């Protein structure tokens, strides 16, 4: 049984249908990439997964539990963390307070402190700026914070919406290293990326989304060499 099973998901914005029945699976320990053009429905998929949007049809099963109708905060408690599109950091809170919000569902203070140290090690800039109001961070710094904050919950599954957006090339590499590390640490990863090449290079499997439907799926290295994919998403 997969860790996460999404079946026939349909989502509407008012009368506009954004997802037209998509199904996919994520297995324990995998890194799954979700790629697709602008407006394909990637963000919508992730939002529905973590309960920020509700679906009109279909089901989401996480670790044998149906979470289709479970409210977002409960889903987080069950061990899914979300790095949202557009960062959504708490602008008025300090960097440190933002990170602590990430650990909201956790109780053990010592464990939290350990994770915090880990996050600071991965993102030294955040430690430097721990007292700064998060809203005044630069774009890339905010992206790091969003990532760090999600890691603070020590999730079983982490879903990321374009984590490399706005990062410098050197840091894009770094972020993918971090994702690999996170995965190696036992966390399952569902990754939405525009940088499809990078995403496929670290993913085990991938799904391709087009206008609300999954049009292709397969092993990441197979897809990486698929001509259609190369042409449409890798810019080759």
């Amino acid at each position, binding site marked *: 049984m997969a860790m996460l099973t999404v079946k026939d998901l349909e989502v509407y914005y008012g009368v506009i249908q954004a997802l037209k029945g998509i199904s996919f699976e994520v297995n324990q320990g995998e890194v799954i990439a979700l790629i697709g053009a602008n407006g394909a429905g990637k963000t919508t998929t992730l939002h529905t997964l*973590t309960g920020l949007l509700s679906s009109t049809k279909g089901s989401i099963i996480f670790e044998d539990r149906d979470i289709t109708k479970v*409210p977002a905060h409960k889903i*987080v408690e069950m061990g899914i963390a979300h790095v*949202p599109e557009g960062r*959504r950091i708490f602008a008025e*809170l300090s960097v440190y*307070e933002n990170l602590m*919000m990430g650990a*909201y569902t956790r109780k053990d203070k010592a464990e939290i402190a350990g994770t915090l140290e880990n996050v600071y090690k991965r993102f030294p800039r955040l430690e430097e700026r721990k007292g700064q109001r998060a809203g005044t961070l630069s774009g890339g710094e905010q992206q790091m914070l969003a990532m760090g904050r999600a890691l603070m*919950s020590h999730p079983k599954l982490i879903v990321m919406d374009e984590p490399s957006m706005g990062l410098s090339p050197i840091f894009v590499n770094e972020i993918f290293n971090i994702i690999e590390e996170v995965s190696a640490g036992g966390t399952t990863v569902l990754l939405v990326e525009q940088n499809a090449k990078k995403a496929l290079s670290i993913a085990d499997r991938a799904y391709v989304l087009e206008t609300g439907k999954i049009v292709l799926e397969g092993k990441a290295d197979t897809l990486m060499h698929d001509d259609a994919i190369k042409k449409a998403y890798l810019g080759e």
Partner: protein
Amino acid sequence: MSFISHLINGISLGSVYAIIALGYTMVYGIAKMLNFAHGDVIMIGAYVVFTSMTGMGLNPILSILLSMVVCTVLGVVIERIAYKPLRNAASPLAVLITAIGISYLLQNVALLLFGAGAKTFTNVVTFPSISLAGGKLTITGVTIVTILACIVIMVGLSLFVGKTKPGRAMQAVSEDRGAAQLMGVNVNGTIALTFAIGSALAAIAGVLLCSAYPSLTPYTGAMPGIKAFVAAVFGGIGSIPGAMIGGILLGIIELLSKAYISSQVADAIVFAVLIVVLLIKPTGLFGKNIQEKV
């Protein structure tokens, strides 16, 4: 000497504004809504105390506790029925208008239940007055209790919001509800809790308001509600110490302008001072002057 006496009177009036403003600012800061019905919850709270004391013969402490329970339930129910459905409305003004509707509703319910006539509230504060300067200056027991209550509530709320987990949840909710959910915060629960606390404070405010100014009608809460709103903004929206300082300053300015300028245009002076202060400090006395990062 008369200046000091006016000052003391100003503080006692201001402390009443302050205690209302604290509840106001609580809801205002977290749920990001102007709860225009807050003053009317205060009025309902005062009626509960009045009826349970004079009608049912309950003792003051029990009456106040009963009133807090009633107000808390009322606040949460109002939130659930009238405000929650509008939480994701296209404009934040929608819920403001609904709050006005609720305000009318509460006033008219009170009118039907208790009649339009004024009732004299029994002062439940038995704390003695303090005399200074050979009896020339008196600070009434109600004032002392109100100020103490203000300080306790202010410190309590600040600690609660700043240091506890539900408090942190409130801060997160106030900034970005969606992101707060992603942190595992129960947004509905947090907002309900905010209203519960705000309404319980309204009950206390109602008791102290009516102990200081013991006249109770269905409209008792309306004007203090507006004044408390002014005080909250004066002190800086959402700032808990700001609400208290704003309230007390408002009371002092009101009484000093009555005393030294003109009692006829005191209201105008109070508002003029408010405007001047906001023009100098556009986010209130304690408001964070936040520049948008571009």
